[in-house]
Every structure is written in structure tokens, then in C-alpha cells.
């Protein structure tokens, strides 16, 4: 159930999660999860597949409602927001989707200009300049007139990043930003995340599986499993904290606290061997 929390988190915390409980299709995704995302830092959320990392991002943005608990973004409770309030809050949040989610009807320029056209009455020349500056920041000003289907995966992700930062948001959420990238594209994205964090002071939350990449960019790591934070700390040292969770996850062990077998009944009984049920 909902736990009482302070309605005015201290200034160093941008996102405060308390007692978050989510049950989807009978499966408990979060079981009274607590975590704080520090302001102005890069925070990584890691954990086994299906543990609810993307769901957590959706809770933070109000795309999904939790069964219980509270999420405060910049001191405001997301769960209690109306649609208009949610939309207002989202104007201050950038979200980088795993598959970039570029609008396929528009070219690169129009994709980045889309939020500006929807929410501002800026003159065309200003929109053009802003978009070109954002594309320059991600190194794709020359690709402004390409269509999304003409972009590589890494380029598409950088365009999506340009779109996410077009309003200079206070918070950027990256959903698996390193998946499927070659080493060059991976380093480009890593550099961009770090640069955006340092130059614009944007708070960043990234969901990722790649510890080496996370080590290069994140200030703090949360390891989530079984609906709770099972480990947290500095990304350079968390792998050696000795807990069975970190040992299995960062050591890549097939079996451990996260079982290899999906919960199932007795194998002999399932195969119909006589007397197996006894």
C-alpha cells in the first residue's frame, strides 16, 4: 500500500519513488520499490530482462499507473496528475525509445521540429535554426532531409535524441540506448549522453544491460530484480559487492537468484510418468 512520503523532496532528488507496487497479469513487477534519482546526474537502471525497467520509466512519465505507491517528479506526484498536467510535465521530459520511434511520414528535420510545431508559435526561421542546432549537436545536420528509413540504427537514435532535447528538458529517459549499436555508434551515443549531462545539466536515467558502457557514463546504478532494488552504488564497484544478485547479473551466470527455469510444475508429472504425482 501507499507509504507516506515527504511532498517536498530535497533539491538534490529529481525523481523520488516510494512504495511502488505494480501487478501485471497476475505477476508482481514491483513490490514496494523505493529509489531516488539524483538531480543533474546520470543514473542507470539495470536488471534481468522482464524485471520492469521500461515499466518503471513508463511510471515516471505517467504512461502507466501503478497499483500503489508514489512517484514524485520535481516534487509533483505523477499519479495524481490530470491529462493536461501530465502533458505539461512531459514537455520537460525527453524520452529516447529503444527503437527510436521516429515518425515515419516525416524527414529528420520535421521529426525534430515536430514538438516545436505542436507546442509553440515560433516563427519558421527560429524553428529552423533551433532544429539545425540540435541536429548539429548530435552530428546529423547534414542528414536533415533524409527519411527515417534511410538512417542506420545509430543515426536514428541520434535523431531521436535531438528530438528529445529540443525543449532542453530537465530529465531525459533513455530506454536501452545501446542495444544493436556497433562500437562506433555506441561511443557516439555514450559521448552524447555524457555531453548533454555535463553541458546542459540534464538529469539522465538510462535503462541498460551493458555494464561496460554504463561504467563510462553513469554516476550511479540501481540493480532491480524481483520487484525491488537488490543492489545500488557506483557502477565501477557494484559488480564486486559480493551479493548473489550482482554476482549472477554482472558475472553472466545462467542460474542463481534469477532461476534459469521459468516457474513450472514437476517435469516427470508433465511427461506423464506413472506414479510421478505421488
Amino acid at each position, binding site marked *: 500500500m501507499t507509504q507516506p512520503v515527504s511532498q517536498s523532496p530535497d533539491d538534490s532528488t529529481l525523481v523520488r519513488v516510494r512504495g511502488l507496487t505494480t501487478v501485471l497479469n*497476475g505477476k508482481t513487477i514491483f513490490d514496494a520499490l523505493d529509489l531516488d534519482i539524483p538531480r543533474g546526474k546520470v543514473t542507470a537502471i539495470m536488471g534481468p530482462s522482464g524485471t520492469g525497467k521500461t515499466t518503471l520509466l513508463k511510471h515516471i*512519465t505517467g*504512461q502507466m499507473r501503478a497499483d500503489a505507491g508514489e512517484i514524485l517528479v520535481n516534487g509533483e506526484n505523477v499519479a495524481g496528475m490530470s491529462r493536461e498536467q*501530465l*502533458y*505539461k510535465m*512531459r*514537455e520537460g*521530459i525527453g*524520452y529516447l*525509445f*529503444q*527503437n527510436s*520511434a*521516429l*515518425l*515515419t511520414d516525416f524527414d529528420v528535420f520535421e521529426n525534430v521540429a*515536430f*514538438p516545436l510545431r*505542436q*507546442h509553440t508559435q515560433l516563427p519558421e526561421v527560429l524553428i529552423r535554426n533551433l532544429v539545425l542546432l540540435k541536429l548539429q549537436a548530435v552530428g546529423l545536420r547534414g542528414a536533415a532531409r533524409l527519411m527515417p528509413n534511410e538512417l542506420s540504427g545509430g543515426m536514428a537514435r541520434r535523431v531521436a535524441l535531438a*528530438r528529445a532535447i529540443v525543449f532542453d528538458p530537465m530529465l531525459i529517459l533513455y530506454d536501452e540506448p545501446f542495444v544493436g549499436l556497433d562500437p562506433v555508434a555506441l561511443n557516439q551515443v555514450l559521448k552524447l549522453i555524457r555531453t548533454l549531462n555535463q553541458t546542459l545539466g540534464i538529469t539522465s536515467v538510462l535503462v541498460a544491460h551493458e555494464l561496460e558502457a554504463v561504467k563510462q557514463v553513469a554516476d550511479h546504478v540501481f540493480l532491480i530484480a524481483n520487484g525491488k532494488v537488490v543492489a545500488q552504488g557506483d557502477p565501477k564497484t557494484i559488480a564486486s559487492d559480493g551479493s548473489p544478485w550482482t554476482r549472477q547479473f554482472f558475472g553472466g551466470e545462467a542460474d542463481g537468484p534469477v532461476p534459469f527455469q521459468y516457474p513450472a510444475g514437476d517435469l516427470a508429472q508433465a511427461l506423464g510418468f506413472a506414479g510421478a504425482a505421488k
Partner: protein
Amino acid sequence: MNVREPQRNNVVTQSLAQIGACGLFLLTLLAAIPRSFRYVRETIRQLWFVGAMSLTIIMVCGLFVGMVLMLQLYHVLSIFGGTSASGMVVALSVYRELGPVVTALLFAGRAGTSITAEIGLMRATDQIDAMEMMAVDPIAYVATPRFLAGLIAMPLLCCVFCAMAIFGGHLVGVTWLGIDNGTFWSNMTAVVDVHTDIVNGVLFKSLAFGAVVSLIAVFQGFTTPPTSEGVAYATTRTVVASSIAILALDFVLTAFLM
């Protein structure tokens, strides 16, 4: 799981749930119409896509429907020596039934499926979620313009279909089979009533069919599971549900309007 299983397998329950969800979706859609006024350009773009791009199939099918209808009627009516009434019967059949119904069925196949597939793929590729995250209401930006475009396009397409069918009937009846041109037009104009046949038959029915087909297409697109298989099923459901709804609604409307 044991409790839900019978519900999933119950076709009646599932169908009623779908109809209920579709009704709620319609309310959401209607509520979003004022917000969608700022996306007039998107509505015009959709009008071009579902309306203008459907013109070829509507014109060709209208032409052949008129031609076949005249051919059949001529041979039947010639038994009774009533071939001069062929033009009149073609016009009444087309205005009252064939025009709106066949246009709606063609519209469901041509535009309805593409609307469903487009929205379904937008969902599968997170474009709808991306709009939500950019604080753009996808109902107002994606759904309502397509719904309104279908609503506006259908009566216009129906008018084109009817004109082409009459032209096809004239081509076969007058040019080929030798019915007198004056008789063809005078019988038609003497019998066709603007209110009963054109307003109720063509405009009112096609408006209703346009609303139903567009609603089903948009609803299926928005509720499809975001997978390739889900999109395939959704497009099929759009055609099946639209066809059934068109024919059932046609009976109800005809019963009330006659």
C-alpha cells in the same frame, strides 16, 4: 486463469466487449474533435489519402456496376416489353442501395484497411507512445483526422460512384442496346426524388457508413496488439466487421427511411 478462460473463448462475450469498447472509443473520438481542429492540415492530408486516392477504384467499380446492372435489367425487362424503364430502375437501385453499400464496402477494403494497418504499425513502432511522450494527444492528432476524413470522403465518393454507375448504364443501355436517349433520361428524372433517393439514399446512408467504417478502422488500429501478426488480424477484422456493420446498418436505415 481458470476464471478468465471461458470468457476468452466465448465469442458472444468477446464480441459484446468489442462493441462496448468501440462505443467508448467513439465517445473519446468525439470528445477529441474540438482539440483536433488545430490539426486541420492533417485532416486534409488524410482526406486526400482516403478520399482522392480511392477515386480510381470507386470510378472503375461504379462504371462496371452500372453496366452490368443495365445489361441484366434489359434482358429481364425485355420479356415484358419494359426496356424503356431500365434507366429508371438502374438509377433507383444505384441511389437507394448499390451506391452507398458498394462504395462503403470498397472504402472499407481500400481505405479502412490502410488506416488500420498504418495506425497498427505506428503502435508497433512506438510512434503513438512517442507522441504521448511529446505531449501530443494521439487521439486528436491521429485518430480524429482519419475519422473525420472518412466521414467527409464517403458521401463524395458515393456521389462519384453513382454518377459513374449511371454513366455505365447509359453506355450499355443507350449506346449499345439502343434504348432511346430521351426515354432513358426522362423516365429517370420523373421517378428519382431528391429527398427520398438522393438525400436519404446517397447522402444520409453514405454518411452513416463512412462513420461506421472509419470508426472501426481507427478503433482496430488503436487496439491491435503491437505485433505484425496483430496488425494482420486487425486489418482482417476491419474488413469483416465493416462489411457486417454496413449490411446490417443498411437494413436498419432502409427500414426507417422508406
